């Protein structure tokens, strides 16, 4: 019994936020200089009346059309988002209907960010191995832009919106899905958070908190990211994760042909690359045109940089909000 990735498609909202616009909105922010560091020059931003569920539907439809897949053959839908359309019902149930999937199909949402795609692959493999599904449709969709405060130039620079759809099945496909290493540390919960709006602080109003220079720090209604803590966490956790993935797949470091990490920002990725002594030619980047699209970064990079272009063993690693992390091997052979 094996599980394979058969197909990947994705959707990007039409509206683009580029550096020119960022500089116009924030004249003191040297957007081009920051792009040198972050590696991000453009981000796609969902329209005001466009939501993660809409984008998920588009990515799903694109996949079905691009690969000529009969929607009735899907027997499980996994939907990864931190921007659910409603508290209830499950957005995946709505998507089952919109994508024309069978009513015998299972469907559920799961709430993860940067580690979401890797967890999605793990869950898909588990469903297949348990005999619960033969063809899993894994959709990721994220609209962090809707959580970002207008004054928050840092987060505006980094995050972009996107959605992806992946088909995983027990039939031979593009990538065989290897073994996983997963992890969680809720101690880091406060470092990437939208505090208000959920049940715990459902109607609490936030206010813009500024520093002595009048620069924006946070608003509890909006996305808050403690960059230093995240950088520090990533720098410590990812090398350990990478080694665990290699070990759990009974491999050596030299067996890994490519490394595809969650595309948080180029500078931090490069820092970790050097820490792990990974040569540049083995390390995959894809963020110039899309930015950090959270759970979408890995499948988008696979689609654009890897499929039909790179052969061998790819080590995936997703890490971030939660804190949550996960890694696995994909193999073309």
């Amino acid at each position, binding site marked *: 019994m094996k599980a394979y990735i058969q197909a990947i498609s994705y959707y990007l909202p039409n509206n683009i936020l580029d550096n020119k616009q960022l500089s116009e909105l924030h004249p003191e922010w040297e957007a081009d*200089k920051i792009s040198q*560091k972050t590696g991000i020059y453009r981000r796609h931003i969902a329209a005001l009346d466009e939501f993660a569920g809409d984008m998920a539907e588009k990515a799903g439809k694109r996949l079905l059309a691009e690969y000529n897949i009969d929607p009735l053959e899907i027997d499980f839908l996994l939907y990864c988002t931190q921007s659910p359309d409603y508290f209830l019902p499950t957005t995946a149930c709505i998507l089952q209907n919109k994508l024309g999937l069978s009513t015998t199909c299972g469907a559920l949402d799961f709430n993860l960010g940067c580690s979401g795609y890797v967890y999605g692959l793990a869950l898909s493999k588990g469903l297949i191995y348990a005999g619960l599904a033969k063809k899993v449709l894994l959709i990721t969709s994220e609209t962090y832009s809707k959580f970002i405060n207008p004054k928050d130039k840092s987060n505006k620079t980094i995050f972009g919106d996107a959605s992806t759809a992946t088909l995983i099945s027990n039939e031979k496909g593009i990538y065989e899905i290897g073994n996983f290493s997963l992890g969680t540390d809720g101690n880091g919960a406060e470092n990437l958070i939208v505090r208000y709006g959920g049940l715990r602080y459902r109607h609490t109003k936030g206010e813009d908190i500024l520093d002595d220079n009048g620069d924006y720090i946070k608003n509890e209604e909006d996305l808050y990211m403690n*960059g*230093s803590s995240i*950088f*520090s966490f990533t*720098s410590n956790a990812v090398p350990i994760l990478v080694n665990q993935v290699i070990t759990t797949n009974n491999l050596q470091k030299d067996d890994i042909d490519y490394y595809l990490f969650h595309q948080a920002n180029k500078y*931090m990725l490069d*820092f970790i690359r050097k820490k792990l002594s990974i040569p540049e030619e083995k390390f995959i980047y894809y963020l110039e045109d899309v930015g950090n699209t959270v759970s979408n970064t890995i499948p988008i990079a696979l689609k654009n940089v890897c499929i039909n272009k790179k052969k061998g063993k790819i080590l995936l690693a997703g890490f971030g909000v939660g804190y949550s992390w996960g890694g696995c091997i994909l193999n073309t052979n």
Partner: protein
Amino acid sequence: MDLQNFTKKISEQFLEEDQPKVDSEIEFRKLPTWDSLTGMAILATIQDEYGINVPVDDFIKLKSVKELYNYVTNLKK
């Protein structure tokens, strides 16, 4: 750990164009490519290389590599 090696490690967190400018006396935050990401990388490097966790509130007050070095060596004692 000596000041020269420490300064080299700190300079490596800057983009290549600024690396030659980083000496122990310079106010490193004034360099053109300095930003919060550089700061994070410096703190992560100090943790990796020297096992010291410099709190962000203390880090903000240290202006030159030499001041940072003195802080870290004091903590290590």
